[in-house]
């Protein structure tokens, strides 16, 4: 590692830490940081709960490792070249550093991230692991291996032609899908592939290629997978085995680093193209512009709507709906994600109902809890979907100056801004509920909970994220065109969980004091009232923030 590069990295790290600490003087950052600290505190406080031990079961850890590995390969492969910061191109690429030094410099933030993540893992899961220190170190090394693989894939894919890259993407996706299906079948007994696929007639279609059934039934793979999944943690208590694991992971990290550093391809040209592309994308995101280019310059204009709903502040809703109709890629991606997400929930429900039909006895209460769990997981869909529908302050951030001159109240404008993404989230959730109902009916009470509760959650999440978008937009309007750091995003994520804490706490407290079977209904009622009150407060905050927005730095 070159001394100058070490100095540069340390100086930048120090400066970023300093600015982060200084930014805590701002109320918004302080609230975000407090939310993050609070959420971490809650997670740490309940670290001995049984749910944590489920997360570090061998099956879960292997699943997580598969996700990390797949993510690393795909991320790197799709990047087609290493990503640097734009100043790196100007200063590092033209300076007398070797390619190896620059690649290693590029890995330094990743190593720091791996260390930090492993530390959090150790603090949260230490009590549930037989060898906590060993597992933590292995996780850190595995994370490092994933970073190396991602970089290797990025460099390799940069050397491929457009056509070959496209073909490899498809092949990788197929291989990853097969591995995932295999994992789900062996680890969790989830048979997602329909039985007719393994029929002889169907297999003829794939002749002479190996098919899923062949792979799944191959003795060597079956034995290996069973051995891996059924490994008893007590086996690790032997002295040599922890050492062996450590050696394996250390060697993995060292060898993968060696492979990446020894690459003969020229990284600079592809890195330049990728960095420019990513920088442009970041700029577009920061300015709230569409990331994907519209190919057609000319489009048939929509007719002027006659609905009174779209007059006055409703014009913003109409505008956002038109933009949504032009953002088909975002909608299709969200639909695809919803399909995968609800598909998994449907599979769980189908498996349960199949087992019950085969004679498996499950108490009424457990079945009720299972459906509640499914509903909760469907609520979780909004956390992901919200990020897909950029038809709010995220895109309108650059129009704040114009919006301030609109003859509408700030509260109405704030509500109009979040209404379209909220509606989209609810529509996609509704599709999920209908799809789930195909695999079995829900209790009427649960349906009512979903009908009344989902809008409250969607409103809350959209409000919290829009607070962040609005703050970022005001900063941009004030000339501080910095993109949101990962720490900021983490703070918003923490806040988007904590925003449900008051309602949850109130519901549990009241529910416990009410005797008998109505406790659940009363608890839900309290939750609903408190959550809608919180939503309203968030909307008021959004409106107040919008009203207070000033372009203070552009003094002319």
């Amino acid at each position, binding site marked *: 590692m070159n001394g100058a590069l070490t100095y540069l990295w340390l100086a930048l790290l120090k400066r970023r830490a300093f600015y982060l600490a200084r930014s805590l003087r701002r109320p918004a950052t302080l609230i975000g940081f407090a939310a993050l600290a609070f959420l971490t505190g809650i997670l740490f406080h309940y670290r001995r709960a049984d749910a944590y031990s489920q997360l570090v079961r061998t099956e879960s850890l292997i699943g997580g490792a598969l996700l990390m590995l797949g993510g690393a390969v795909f991320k790197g492969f799709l990047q087609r070249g290493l990503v640097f910061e734009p100043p790196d191109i100007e200063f590092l690429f033209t300076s007398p550093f070797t390619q190896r030094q620059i690649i290693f410099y590029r890995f330094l933030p990743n190593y720091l991230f791996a260390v930090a993540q492993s530390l959090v893992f150790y603090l949260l899961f230490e009590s549930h692991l037989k060898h906590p220190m060993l597992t933590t170190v292995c996780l850190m090394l595995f994370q490092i291996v994933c970073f190396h693989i991602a970089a290797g894939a990025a460099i390799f894919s940069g050397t491929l032609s457009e056509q070959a890259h496209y073909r490899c993407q498809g092949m990788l996706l197929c291989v990853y899908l097969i591995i995932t299906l295999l994992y789900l079948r062996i680890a969790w007994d989830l048979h997602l592939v329909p039985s007719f696929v393994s029929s002889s007639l169907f297999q003829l279609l794939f002749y002479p290629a190996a098919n899923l059934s062949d792979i799944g039934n191959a003795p060597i793979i079956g034995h290996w997978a069973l051995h891996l999944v059924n490994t008893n943690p007590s086996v690790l208590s032997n002295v040599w085995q922890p050492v062996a694991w450590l050696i394996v992971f250390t060697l993995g990290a060292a060898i993968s680093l060696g492979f990446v550093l020894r690459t003969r391809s020229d990284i600079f040209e592809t890195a330049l193209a990728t960095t420019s592309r990513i920088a442009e994308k970041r700029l577009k995101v920061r300015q709230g512009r569409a990331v994907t280019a519209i190919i057609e310059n000319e489009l048939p204009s929509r007719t002027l709507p006659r609905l009174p709903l779209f007059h006055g502040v409703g014009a913003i809703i109409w505008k956002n709906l038109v933009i949504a109709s032009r953002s088909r890629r975002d909608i299709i991606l969200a639909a695809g994600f919803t399909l995968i997400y609800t598909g998994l929930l449907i599979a769980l429900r189908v498996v349960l109902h199949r087992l019950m039909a085969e004679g498996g006895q499950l108490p009424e209460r457990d079945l009720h809890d299972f459906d509640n769990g499914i509903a909760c997981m469907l609520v979780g869909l909004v956390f992901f979907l919200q990020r897909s529908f950029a038809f709010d302050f995220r895109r309108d951030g650059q129009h704040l100056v114009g919006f301030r001159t609109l*003859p509408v109240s700030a509260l109405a404008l704030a509500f109009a801004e979040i209404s379209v993404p909220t509606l989209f989230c609810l529509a996609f959730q509704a599709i999920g509920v209908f799809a789930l109902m195909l695999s079995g009916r829900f209790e009427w009470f649960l349906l009512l909970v979903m009908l009344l509760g989902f809008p409250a959650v969607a409103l809350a999440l959209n409000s919290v994220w829009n607070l962040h978008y609005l703050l970022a937009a005001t900063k941009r309007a004030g000339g501080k065109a910095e993109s949101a750091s990962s720490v900021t995003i983490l703070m918003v994520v923490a806040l988007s969980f904590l925003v449900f804490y008051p309602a949850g706490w109130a519901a549990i407290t009241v529910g416990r004091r009410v005797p008998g079977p109505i406790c659940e209904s009363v608890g839900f009622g309290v939750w609903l009232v408190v959550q809608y009150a919180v939503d309203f407060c968030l909307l008021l905050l959004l409106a107040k923030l919008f009203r207070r927005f000033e*372009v203070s730095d552009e003094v002319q």
Partner: protein
Amino acid sequence: MKDDAPVIQVEHFSKSYADFSAVRDLSFSVGTGEIVGLVGANGAGKTTTLRAITGILRPTAGTIQVGGYDIGQEPIAAKHQFAYIPDTIHPYDLLTVTEHLHFIALAYRIKDAERKYDALLDELELADKRNEIASSLSRGMLQKLSLACAFLREPRVVILDEPLTGLDPRGIRNIKESIRRRAASGTAFLLSSHLLVLVEALCDQVLILHRGQKMAFGSLEEIRKLATLHAEASLEDVFFAVTERNADSSPLAKAS
């Protein structure tokens, strides 16, 4: 609408940011059909003044009325009176030119808005771009689009920050003619520009700001007299005479 009041009435307006005073004790008014030019060096307080008039910035002191409505007390009524075109145009990337007009028509509840589209788009040479999305338009075209959005709502006053940036010569002439024609029919204009030739050619009154303070306000002839310059002195001569002679920032005796 309060027709008897000046369209814009600024009284003792000041704006400070922490220790920095951007504008100090500024008073002026814009009457119906008047074209007032706001000139000053970078950092003189032009954009701050315009943004305070439009309600984007809150005054530290003083009052601002638009169309007789206090922008701080009755913001919605006041905002119906003006159209504001900022120095940097940010259109909606994914909306077409016509859809931008639709949006304004809906937001300001303009009746029979579509009947005005053709004339407006012809006037601003946007007729053949009506179905083009904003992201494909040039800087000049975007400027015209924002002018179309402003003119569609037929405001009592149009506030423009650097209105001719990015326009071609024909575009500049067309916009100047549009402004004059609308001013003749009673629309007031308050425009800020560094193009002193434009301000001289277009404006009835000139407000010269220097380091946040009003140095002069009145017609060019009035300011010439106050600055004791000859009758043929251009606005450029007047501007430098006023701002450089008053390096200590003491304003000239007010013309109005």
